[in-house]
């Protein structure tokens, strides 16, 4: 999609390019021998800088007061200024905490707030995944700031179409690249979670292990809905063609029991298909289990 005003391209890529120049410059600085400065010179310099800093702090506070007064017409730029001023005035812990909090957006910096030498000329971005409130695995992508921008290394599983996504977006819109990758990874994590939950909590309902591919977008299993029953009359095949979703696009349930004439089986089969389309996999089986309990209760009473 084209942007009438594509500032994200200018924003992130431009400052990564800037970084490249800075890296070569700072490398030169490290090689220069440290200059001997007299104690008193440093002391004077520090005093002057502190003075200037205090003056600027007061000025920024004033601006913040003015901006807060006209919040109704606040432009996005002004809001950014307020946060910047707060960040400078805030404590180190607060900023470190906020950096950590970015993981809840799905994207944050790997080992942010880090100290120590950074040898690779790049930025390491960490992508978090979750499914229905369950926080799942994280993956990282190490980007090297060069023209063209490239991925140095990453922990993205091989069956996620990383090449495709980077070919589409990496050079033109890093933001889009990361969010798209985030979508794919979250969908994969969600499908995997559903399959794992099914295997872990509802093994009794399955005849044998759940069959799945590494992308967890093709699942096949044989199951029953009545816990007491000894046969597994239903055969399911779930296909998730859209890799950015956690619900299947194709569901095929076949009845392979002996009582094929009865219409109630056909009704059940059809209703199961509908369930698998609309509810997460393990929740479908939770409702099977609950219905089974209800049946049991009616037998007892």
């Amino acid at each position, binding site marked *: 999609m084209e942007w009438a005003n594509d500032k994200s391209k200018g924003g992130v890529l431009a400052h990564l390019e800037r970084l490249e120049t800075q890296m070569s410059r700072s490398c030169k600085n490290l090689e220069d021998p440290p200059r001997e400065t007299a104690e008193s010179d440093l002391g004077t310099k520090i005093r002057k800088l502190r003075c200037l800093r205090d003056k600027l702090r007061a000025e920024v506070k004033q601006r913040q007061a003015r901006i807060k007064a006209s919040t109704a017409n606040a432009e996005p730029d002004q809001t950014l200024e307020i946060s910047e001023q707060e960040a400078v005035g805030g404590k180190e812990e607060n900023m470190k905490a*906020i950096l950590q909090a970015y993981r809840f957006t799905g994207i944050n910096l790997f080992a942010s707030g880090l100290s120590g030498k950074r040898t690779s000329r790049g930025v390491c971005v960490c992508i978090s995944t979750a499914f229905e409130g*369950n926080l799942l695995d994280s993956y990282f992508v190490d980007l090297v700031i060069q023209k063209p921008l490239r991925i140095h290394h990453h922990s993205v599983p091989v069956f996620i179409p990383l090449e495709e996504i980077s070919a589409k977006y990496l050079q033109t819109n890093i933001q889009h690249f990361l969010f798209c990758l985030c979508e794919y990874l979250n969908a994969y994590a969600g499908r995997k979670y559903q399959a794992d939950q099914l295997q872990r909590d509802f093994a009794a309902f399955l005849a044998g292990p759940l069959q799945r591919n590494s992308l967890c977008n093709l699942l096949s299993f044989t199951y029953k809905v009545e816990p007491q029953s000894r046969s597994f009359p239903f055969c399911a095949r779930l296909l998730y063609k859209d890799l950015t979703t956690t619900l299947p696009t194709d569901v095929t349930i076949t009845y392979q029991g002996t009582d094929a004439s009865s219409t109630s089986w056909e009704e059940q089969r059809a209703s199961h298909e509908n369930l698998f389309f609309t509810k997460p996999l393990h929740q479908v089986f939770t409702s099977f289990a609950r219905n089974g309990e209800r049946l049991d209760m009616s037998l007892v009473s």
Partner: protein
Amino acid sequence: MDARRAEVRALEAEIAALRRACEEPRAPGEDTSRARKSLQEVHQSDSGEWAASKDLRGHLGHLESELLFLSTLTGINIINYSMKTEDLTSTENTEKSIKKVLQRHRLSGNCHMITFQLEFQILEIQNKESLSSVITDLNIIMEPTEYSELSEFVSRAEDRRDLLMFFRSLHFFVEWCEYRKCTFEHFKEKYSEAVRLPEGAASSCMVVQSPRQPGFELVIIWRIQIDDEGKVLPKLDLLTKVPQQALELDKNRVLETAPLGFRALLGVLGIEATLESLIKSLCVGENH
């Protein structure tokens, strides 16, 4: 000696950041140049880091740059964050080597013009085999509230406790809103006589009328919807407003089929080209 040099560096970084905070807001290029400088500072202060890595103030400049970088990257600006933990491990749990911790998080910030305040709880259970982290409660307050599409989305996110999807969809939603606003403003500027924005550029409605035939109006409704899975999609519709006479003259039922034709055109040309061609068709004969 090292500590003083480090203090000089830290002061210089702080002064640079303060100076930028004092600059007048300019065009949207403002935050890109700021982000550029911020990442420059990340590595400037970082190369000095290893000489004085324990220095607090040098660290501040470095952290600030990383924050700015992340907020530019995600489009989400987190301003405040705090967390409290509560140990819920019972004696029974300890015997089975199970540890339970409840975290209460508070987070606030903005995504462009939309501000949010979140409170959520995460329950961490550590047993012998694994560590599980589950969001057990999520409360979201958002302003402004005039984006009606958002309130339904927010309730869904709260119900599902899907924090990541909330941020992801919010980011895309806001980007689409910005794009819509830019597009409307662009057309308003280019065809100032034909295009009207009765509810402003940030709304979902653009009215096109031929300056020579003011009775004819094309109303373009551009909604931005968030579906069940959190996908953000634009939905455009065309409404026609014509005088009764014209309706009677319309033997080919062009006006009736216009909305469908509009949808088809969108699929072929995309949003900008479709709107442009629509406006041009009404302005036939004008000097554009």
